[in-house]
């Protein structure tokens, strides 16, 4: 009889651990997985919640929601974004607030659990009646929140680079879409003569979508995809992958691994005697914060593609980095998603000022064309798709963990989430 229990227990244990492992993998740093988060704002704007606007704007404060994972596996990345958003709010309040009101942040924990994101979004919109929400990191969290925001006509500012092919009327995307990160980086590689590309990614939506785009681009522009490999989220042994890379002899490895897998991959790559001089890699999910966690000695000389680095040379960035270090400690670093979260708060404040109201529909209408001198340089909201114009930057990781810019797009690039302006991308966006 005992035996029966045992087996049951075992089966349960295995299932539970699989679930755990699955969740664990997703985390990390990269935002990429999907960036879709929809933000809800509770604001009144929606017709379904007409009464809420008055509440959001009432009194001397205006409430905004901040919804990131502060516990669980995604907290690795999301806590830092929450910090930069809070800093932006503090700065705006010090300058007198928005429309004469102080911003009051309602911070909620999405707990790395997608249904929790939906639940908390609803709570922010209906109970706290916030004017807007800043939050989300993974696509899964965005997709969980989206119906809530659309139902209640909320407003979400989503601060992470993502795979594109999306544009919700209730979401502003302040992270890069593919033509502001991935596509220019592939062009950069081709220009450098790196034609044989090995695609390595975690096995889920962001890397697969990104690689689909990269393959089409390489095929159109004379590059070659020598192999395409995916590993499960949270995968920790890359010896076989590295053996395959050695066999394929690519010019460059295009890395869309997510999170902790990056640590294992780069450590084991170095152990196998491969440095950036032997084989270049370019990553889209490794920023300053991840470099710190992996250890810069494993990454020196490898490339990354983002729109912002801590070293980006603008007067606004000097102030941003200085304030951030003052607020969160001298050894803290700033990264692209953190900067995008910070910018999101300022853009929302500017839009509300311009609209003269916190109502979602008015803020959305006013947001078109708003410019802001961000730490990454000037950004502009694109009225067509609610993404923002951003400057693309390719950087090289240095031994001190900082990233130095090698190339930039020379100016802000117009967001094109559906890749309509690229001939070779036809057919990618219609699914």
């Amino acid at each position, binding site marked *: 009889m005992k035996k029966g229990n045992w087996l049951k227990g075992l089966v349960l244990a295995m299932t*539970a*651990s699989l679930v755990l*492992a699955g969740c664990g993998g997703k985390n990390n740093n990269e935002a990429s997985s999907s960036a879709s988060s929809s933000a809800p704002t509770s604001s009144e704007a929606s017709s379904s919640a007409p009464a809420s606007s008055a509440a959001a704007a009432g009194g001397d404060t205006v409430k905004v929601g901040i919804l990131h994972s502060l516990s669980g596996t995604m907290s*690795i990345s999301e806590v830092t974004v929450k910090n930069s958003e809070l800093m932006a709010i503090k700065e705006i309040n010090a300058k007198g607030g928005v429309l004469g009101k102080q911003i009051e942040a309602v911070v909620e924990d999405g707990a790395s659990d997608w249904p929790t994101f939906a639940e908390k979004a609803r709570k922010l919109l209906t109970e706290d009646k916030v004017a807007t929400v800043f939050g989300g990191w993974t696509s899964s969290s965005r997709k969980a929140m989206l119906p809530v925001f659309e139902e209640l006509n909320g407003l979400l500012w989503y601060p992470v680079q993502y795979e594109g092919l999306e544009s919700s009327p209730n979401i502003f995307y302040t992270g890069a879409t593919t033509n502001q990160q991935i596509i220019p980086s592939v062009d950069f590689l081709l220009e450098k003569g790196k034609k044989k590309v090995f695609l390595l990614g975690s*096995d889920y939506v962001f890397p697969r979508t990104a690689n689909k785009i990269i393959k089409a681009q390489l095929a159109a522009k004379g590059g070659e995809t020598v192999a395409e490999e995916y*590993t499960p989220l949270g995968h920790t042994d890359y010896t076989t992958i590295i*053996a395959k890379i050695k066999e394929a002899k690519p010019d460059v490895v295009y890395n869309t691994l997510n999170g902790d897998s990056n640590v294992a991959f780069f*450590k084991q790559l170095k152990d196998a*005697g491969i440095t950036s001089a032997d084989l270049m890699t370019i990553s889209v999910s490794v920023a300053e914060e991840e470099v710190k*966690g992996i250890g810069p000695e494993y990454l020196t000389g490898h490339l990354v593609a983002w729109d912002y680095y801590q070293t980006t040379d603008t007067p606004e960035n000097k102030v941003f980095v200085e304030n951030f270090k003052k607020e969160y400690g001298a050894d803290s670093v700033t990264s692209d998603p953190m900067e995008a979260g910070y910018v999101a708060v300022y853009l929302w404040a500017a839009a509300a000022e311009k609209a003269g109201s916190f109502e979602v529909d008015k803020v959305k209408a006013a947001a078109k064309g708003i410019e802001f001198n961000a730490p990454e340089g000037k950004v502009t909201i694109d009225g067509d798709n609610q993404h923002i114009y951003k400057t693309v930057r390719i950087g090289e990781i240095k031994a001190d963990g900082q990233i130095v810019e090698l190339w930039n797009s020379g100016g802000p690039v117009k967001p094109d989430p559906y890749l309509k302006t690229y001939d070779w991308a036809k057919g990618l966006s219609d699914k």
Partner: protein
Amino acid sequence: MEVWVSQVFNGLSVSSILLLIALGLAITFGLMRVINMAHGEFIMIGAYGAYMTQQIFKSYLPKSLFDAYFPVAIVISFVIAFAIGYLLEVTLIRFLYGRPLDSLLATWGVGLMLQQLARSIFGAPNVAVASPSWLDGGLTLFSGTVLPYKRLFIIALVASCLFAMYLYIYRSNAGRRMRAVMQNRDMAACLGISTRRVDAFTFAIGSGIAGIAGCALTLIGPIGPSIGTYYIVDAFMVVVLGGVGKLVGTVAGALGIGVFNTLFEWWTDASLGKVLVFLCIVAFLQWKPMGMFAVRTRSLD
């Protein structure tokens, strides 16, 4: 040819890592029958033990001694994980013997608490551990085939852990008492063995070995609050496949899974390779439900 040599080595290396993460579980789950979902968190504790040791060496000791941190870290990781394991057994696990489902849920909860505790203490982001310089690089067999020293070191570490466990369990008085209690608790108690003390000690040793695994894994993998979740499934797989309760089964299970995983991954890809390995394990367990090496004893169950 080169590929085969390096793939065979990779297979061995993966096996050694699997064995390392499963050894502790072979005791807490294999011998003691506690479905220990917190096993992964003891691995995490070991990893943070290595991190703390490194920070201490960096801050308080001369730079020339830095490379010596790693052996010290192994000991410290063992001690910390041992102590926490002991505490856990005394406060919780001892009420759960013979109740597998309860122990499953309780240890899972403990695992989540330990993860969040690590997050509160060390922060959510991963931390970096610099490996000692004497483990950098590798042994070049012929051009293009490098056996990294870290991998060789882990294989050696596993072999010594295994040897130490063998000596302890099969050749020492304490180990004999341990086996007696696990096989027939009442009889052992009648013969004057303090089963309480043996239980606590056994669980703590299993936890301590998980700590060593965590320390070694800092060489090749990430160090963060949730790393335990990456290893727990593999650890259970190894123990179940090998045959619960047999050390030699655990070794065979790790070798089998490691080698086949590497081969399948080479032939297909990482995701599919893992699926194939799982399929093979399921098929094998259909054929031999007790695993590769079944324990034959009248006292079980």
